């Protein structure tokens, strides 16, 4: 008997399907006894290699053994019409459903492979007007985006107690004044230096202030390679007038 690298299978149904294809079995008349034994052998192998997800396979193995036992017993279960119920029925139905989706998955994969050979445009053309004032319609926001934003909020906010937060509520406007004063007196300056020893809320608001000021053309940002830092220079007020 050969063994199978089980990660090749998407789960117990996939493994069952493999047996069926390999032995060209009739899905509607699966030789449960034989399949159950073989399935168990694989699951034992799986346990040896300690594969994640072995639980799903164990569950199926138990199911198969249950069916095998029921088939050996003379008790005949009947449906509402008095017809005898094949103990394999439910499993067969699941397998058939799985086969359909498995095929659909192959079709989707082929479609995807073909589609990604086509390339869409990179960023919108430069001739596109600079971001206009927001309109009334918003699209392309998923619930997942929202939940991810929630994660950012909860993982980024520094763990401080109420008092610290109260005393460290900086506004972007305050930080703009602070940056302007600092840069005016000291000229070109490293952001990291200016922020040294400051608290996280201070730095975050200051950073937002930098972005705001850069957007308004009040300062220049220089990034120098290889450093997690950047330099700021205040632009003379009159110069900014022509830029916008």
């Amino acid at each position, binding site marked *: 008997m*050969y063994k199978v690298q089980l990660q090749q299978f*998407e789960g117990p149904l996939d493994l069952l399907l493999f047996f069926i294809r390999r032995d060209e079995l009739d899905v509607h008349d699966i030789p449960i006894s034989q399949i159950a034994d073989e399935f168990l052998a694989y699951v034992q192998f799986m346990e040896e290699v300690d594969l994640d997800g072995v639980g799903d396979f164990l569950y199926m193995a138990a199911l198969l053994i249950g069916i095998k036992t029921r088939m050996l017993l003379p008790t005949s279960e009947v449906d509402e019409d008095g017809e005898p119920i094949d103990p394999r029925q439910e499993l067969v139905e*699941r397998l058939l459903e799985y086969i359909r989706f498995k095929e659909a998955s192959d079709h*989707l994969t082929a*479609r995807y492979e073909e589609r990604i050979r086509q390339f*869409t*445009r990179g960023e919108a053309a430069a001739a596109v007007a600079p971001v206009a004032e927001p309109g009334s319609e918003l699209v392309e926001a998923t619930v997942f985006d929202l939940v991810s934003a929630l994660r950012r909020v909860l993982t980024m906010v520094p763990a401080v107690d109420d008092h610290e937060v109260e005393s460290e509520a900086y506004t972007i406007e305050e930080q703009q004044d602070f940056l302007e004063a600092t840069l005016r007196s000291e000229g070109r300056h490293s952001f990291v230096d200016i922020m040294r020893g400051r608290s996280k809320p201070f730095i975050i608001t200051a950073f937002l202030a930098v972005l705001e000021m850069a957007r308004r053309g009040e300062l220049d940002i220089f990034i120098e390679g290889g450093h997690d830092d950047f330099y700021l220079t205040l632009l003379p007020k009159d110069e900014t007038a022509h830029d916008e």
Partner: protein
Amino acid sequence: MTNRTDETYREQLEKAVEAIVFAADEPVTAAHIARAFADVTGSEAPAPDDVEGIVDEINELYARTGRSFRIERWAGGYRFATLAELAPYMEAVHATDGQRRLTRTLMEALAILAYRQPTSRSDLEFVRGVDCDYALRKLLEYGLIDVVGRADTVGRPLLYGTTDKFLELFGLAALDDLPNLREVESILDDPAFHREKARLMMTSGLTLANEQHDHGTQTQDETSE
């Protein structure tokens, strides 16, 4: 300004359609184009069919003049894309890691979600017979599916469905364009179903018991992305 002939109206519209679709970074609907056109020109908004006709004309001209791109109909809108046959050039120049390969695990979960949507996690897991925690998370992260509501059943589980990005990435205009699920009998009757056997036996999936098993790759699907 009102004695604009039909000729120049169409020319204007053609230019507008082409420019708007060209500059967008996601599919643009006919309604959207029509509204922008009406806003700018002050003329009547064209009907969706007119926009559709213009897109056909543009694509014909591209074909006639040997252009490298066409306007595709994806996710209910229009979007420029290069011809598939030119993929080798694109791959040579542009980093293609943005075009993420989807693993078999993800593709299988996605197929079930696409066809059964809106569907719950437990439904997905029942069909696949395996835990789908990882697959759901990744598909959400890739923006291919999203939460779309809750079921009315016990526990009111979240329901998931595919997004417009799914349609766009699979080149579908709408969900209706998904290929029909084949009836299972016709799949089983298909000689290809068992012919698959040969392929299965050949793939690296099988190793003889007495060969040393290399388990180094066993979690490939789960970790590669």
